């Protein structure tokens, strides 16, 4: 109990908890779950955007998109590394993803249907992710906080890129404008769902707030996102697919309509448009690459054996 009190005091004092420090089992568990889910989301998140790499409409966009998807893979890698400091192996975590046991952000179970979706993902999905992640740069667990600082820097670059795509489209031909509007129509509500269930229904919130893993509630972050994003959409000349959206001058907030939580739950339960496809793609890659990983191990073993040989001979 003394350890718990000391731990909580450190957290309260905004001290960073480091891998070798004592921490409550539940803290460790929560972090492993959250960090690995975040890592999985980066990895699965490569797919919807990856879907447009071969069809990007200019060389500049092609290079930028490929670099962005590559960044996401990189984020996945250092988030796995952060999780590993808590005593789980990346293989274990990755196996949980492939088996469907671990979750990842539901937003990546929606399909990318036009080039405008690449803009919308950058603008809205990365925008929402940043809103979630900026507070995590100050989260109580050191390795996680440091990983998030790097992630956030790159994400905000991606977000600007996405907005710039939307801007180009909304200043383009009638067809391009229609494409941009259609993308906003499809991505707006799922982006709002990215902040998770309403505060009343959120399972892990209270303790996470106390442990400073989390610093704002889901609803707070969602409102921040809406407030930041709606003026950007208006600047694009686009209409949000929400007839109830209006500015509340008194509160200083954009008020929005009711979220379809039935859809949120269905997608979370595995019934989104692309859940099966996303996991299958990664499973197929993993299975059809098994011979490569085995060969790499076999070769490394041969090398070690050869390196040991002359040494023994010299004995």
């Amino acid at each position, binding site marked *: 109990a003394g350890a718990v009190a000391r731990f909580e005091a450190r957290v309260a004092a905004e001290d960073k908890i480091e891998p070798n420090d004592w921490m409550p089992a539940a803290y460790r568990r929560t972090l492993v779950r959250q960090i690995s889910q975040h890592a999985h989301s980066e990895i699965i998140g490569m797919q919807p955007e990856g879907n447009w790499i071969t069809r990007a409409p200019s060389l500049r966009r092609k290079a930028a998109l*490929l670099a962005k998807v590559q960044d996401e893979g990189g984020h996945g890698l250092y988030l796995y590394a952060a999780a590993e400091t808590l005593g789980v192996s990346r293989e274990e975590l990755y196996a949980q993803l492939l088996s469907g046991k671990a979750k990842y952000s539901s937003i990546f179970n929606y399909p990318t249907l036009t080039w405008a979706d690449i803009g919308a993902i950058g603008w809205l999905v990365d925008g929402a992710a940043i809103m979630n992640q900026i507070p995590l740069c100050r989260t109580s667990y050191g390795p996680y906080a440091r990983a998030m600082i790097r992630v956030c820097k790159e994400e905000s670059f991606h977000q600007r890129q996405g907005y710039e795509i939307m801007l180009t489209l909304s200043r383009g031909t009638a067809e391009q404008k229609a494409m941009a509007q259609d993308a906003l129509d499809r991505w707006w509500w799922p982006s709002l769902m990215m902040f998770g269930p309403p505060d009343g229904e959120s399972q892990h919130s209270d303790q996470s707030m106390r442990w400073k893993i989390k610093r704002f509630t889901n609803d707070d972050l969602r409102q921040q996102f809406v407030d930041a994003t709606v003026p950007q959409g208006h600047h694009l000349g686009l209409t949000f697919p929400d007839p109830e959206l209006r500015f509340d001058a008194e509160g200083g907030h954009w008020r929005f309509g009711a979220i379809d939580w039935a859809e949120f739950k269905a997608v979370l339960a595995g019934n989104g448009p692309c859940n099966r496809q996303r996991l299958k*793609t990664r499973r197929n*890659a993993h299975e059809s690459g098994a011979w*490569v990983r085995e060969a790499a191990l076999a070769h490394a073993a041969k090398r070690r054996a050869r390196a040991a040989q002359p040494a023994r001979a010299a004995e």
Partner: protein
Amino acid sequence: MTSILVAQDAPPLLLHVLRLADTALVLGHRLSEWTGRAPMLEEELALANAALDYIGQARSLYDYAARLDGRGRTEDDLAYLRDTPDWRCWLIAELPNGDFAHSVLRQFLVAAALQPYWRALAASRDATLAAIAAKAEKEAAYHLRHAGEWVIRLGDGTDESHRRMTEALEDLWPYTGEMFEADAVEAALVAEGVAPDPLALRPAWEAMVARVLAEATLDLPAPCAWMQSGGRRGVHTEHLGHLLAVMQHLPRSYPGAVW
């Protein structure tokens, strides 16, 4: 008329820059197809890195080609508005990825030709080309090292990986001869000191390939075997058309739009 044709009787320098650009872009495109499909995450990122290098090279080269062409075309016009017969890439670049063995072996065989080529081209009398080549040479050197390590690892790995590498070698070998062909276009540039003679670089390639294959415990195919050729004349494999159909779909569907 949306197809942008660069006639075969265009200036040799323009044609040559376009050839180099086409090979770089098609290779970059193929590598980018690995995204989401690689055997391990680190390699997925490494393949994307190489793809970015190639696409970057292609952009510099197309940009230069567009300036040489002097008719107000852009890098994107050259990449997105030419149909199959107007492309000038090596056939080896356009072959489908196949399995990881095929992809790393291609990456190795091509980088082993490109790295000495870029190094020699960095001494070109054409300053723009020399600058592009100097940068590309560094990238190719890295590709060569990375892919070469994989060739060794997979050749001298398991029975399965050895078998796959052997098959990849049989499949790709006939496409290596084309990398050392020089037609009249190239001969003209060689004479002017603008481009190196690819044939002169062949021994270095052969030595590199022989060394790596030996370490990979793979048999070196007969270097004088029958070789495929045609990319420089616009006579391609059946695969390029499918690649272009996908790559060019948007600019072809929305002519004149800016993205």
